[in-house]
């Protein structure tokens, strides 16, 4: 039985026929970064200020880890759950429920595909930012990849929970969007780096995307890594995935 590879292949084929989904998965973070870098004025001026960790950076430099965080959020919280919600709505999942395939494989196939497209999308964005916006390349590539992978797994688990329960694509999208915007706020999309007030920054560090954003930023600029956001991400991951598989609805 080659159910998992068959599911992944089938999903990849379907994705290749859906231009909107390809854009969202692969090019959205790049588009976001280029817009911020090229259109919004003042993003390439040096920040200055008191914090030695950030004083030499330009706003656009800070946007890179944040754009990656946004990509993480949009793929895992809206694209992926609404794909499964749509399958539930149309009865595709019920159809699968009559076969020996089981919910784990259906979820895992989606998680793997979303994970791969996330990594590709992030890689394209980083290369574009470094080449076109003259942004800083990460200090430690391996650390950044590690942190990004952990953040991706964590966010896909959060997305799995929405995917496991939402009755329709629209429903999944709605729930996903609400969580997404809260996550964007805690990730510091509107208040990058030192611009976020310290108490808020501490609270945000305990939220899934806030923790992802903070450790990604630290890894990117070679700042001292705090273990707290890493632990926060691990702690979020396990129960979310467990609940998602246990509460998965076929209809």
């Amino acid at each position, binding site marked *: *039985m080659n*159910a998992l590879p*068959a*599911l992944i292949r*089938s999903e990849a084929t379907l994705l290749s026929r*859906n231009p909107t989904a390809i854009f969202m998965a692969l090019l959205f973070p790049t588009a976001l970064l280029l817009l911020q870098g090229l259109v919004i004025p003042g993003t390439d001026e040096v920040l200055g200020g008191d914090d030695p960790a950030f004083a030499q950076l330009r706003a656009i430099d800070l946007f890179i880890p944040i754009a990656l965080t946004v990509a993480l959020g949009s793929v895992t919280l809206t694209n992926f759950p609404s794909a499964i919600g749509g399958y539930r709505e149309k*009865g595709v999942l019920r*159809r699968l429920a009559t*076969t020996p*395939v089981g919910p784990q494989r259906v979820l895992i196939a989606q998680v793997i595909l979303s994970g791969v497209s996330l990594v590709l999308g992030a890689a394209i964005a980083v290369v574009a930012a470094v080449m076109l916006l003259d942004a800083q390349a990460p200090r430690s590539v391996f650390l950044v990849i590690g942190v990004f992978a952990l953040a991706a797994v964590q966010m896909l688990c959060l997305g799995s929970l929405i995917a496991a329960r939402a009755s329709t694509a629209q429903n999944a999208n709605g729930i996903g969007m609400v969580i997404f915007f809260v996550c964007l706020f805690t990730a510091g999309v509107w208040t990058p780096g030192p611009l976020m007030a310290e108490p808020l920054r501490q609270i945000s560090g305990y939220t899934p995307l806030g923790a992802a954003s903070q450790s990604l930023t630290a890894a990117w600029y070679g700042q001292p890594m705090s273990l707290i956001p890493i632990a926060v991400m691990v702690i979020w991951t396990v129960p979310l995935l467990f609940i998602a598989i246990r509460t998965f609805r076929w209809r």
Partner: protein
Amino acid sequence: MPAIRIQNLRKTFGKHVAVGDVDLNVAQGEIFGILGPNGAGKTTTVECLTGMIRPDRGEIRVLGLDPATDLSALRHTVGYQLQSSELPNEMRVGEALQLFAAFYPNPADIDELLETVGLRAHRKKAFSSLSGGQKQRLSIALALVGNPRIAVLDELTTGLDPQGRRDVWELIENVRETGVTIVLVTHFLDEAEALCDRLAIIDHGHTIAEGTPSELIEASGLPSNERRPSLEDAYLAIIHNNELLRAA
């Protein structure tokens, strides 16, 4: 060993009693029809026997398997065509069959199956561009792709034109020839009369009659003077008698 034996099946959803007390006996190799008015409990019964939902009470054996404890083996043994289910719009006929074939250890040959259901020429067609009849035939093919020993087909020909229905009937006869036991849920009496070896009538969650079409006609007690009563006449009489009984 019977293909399916159900005794004293009961399933409630909250306060609603979907199935009160259903008994069924299906022999191997037969085409067995489950008839009954809308909301009688037909679909709930087959959902219990295919392990899609858990009954509150009652005994179910499907080729000796208990859906509650042998679910994985049951999924390999029973193909279930749902009343209404779709596939992703962009998925093509051949791709759908290939995907579902990958879920089973000994799947059917996809080319042969496409030939059997008359979709060979439409192999590359996207699901969204199939006609109602083609979708129905694909759905039947998906229920058969795992080489099941029992195929449960719910509302087989709803929404098909007369030619489409006849084509599907012929397809079902062909599948039976290969030794597959078939359970048909339908409310088309002509379909049941044309296809089924034996059938059961379910009404208000109870089995109220079971037998061959001619046994049911006899059991209805209808006089057969100038015109032999049809299965439809018998069905309506049995349902009507049941209503009178319930009222009394």
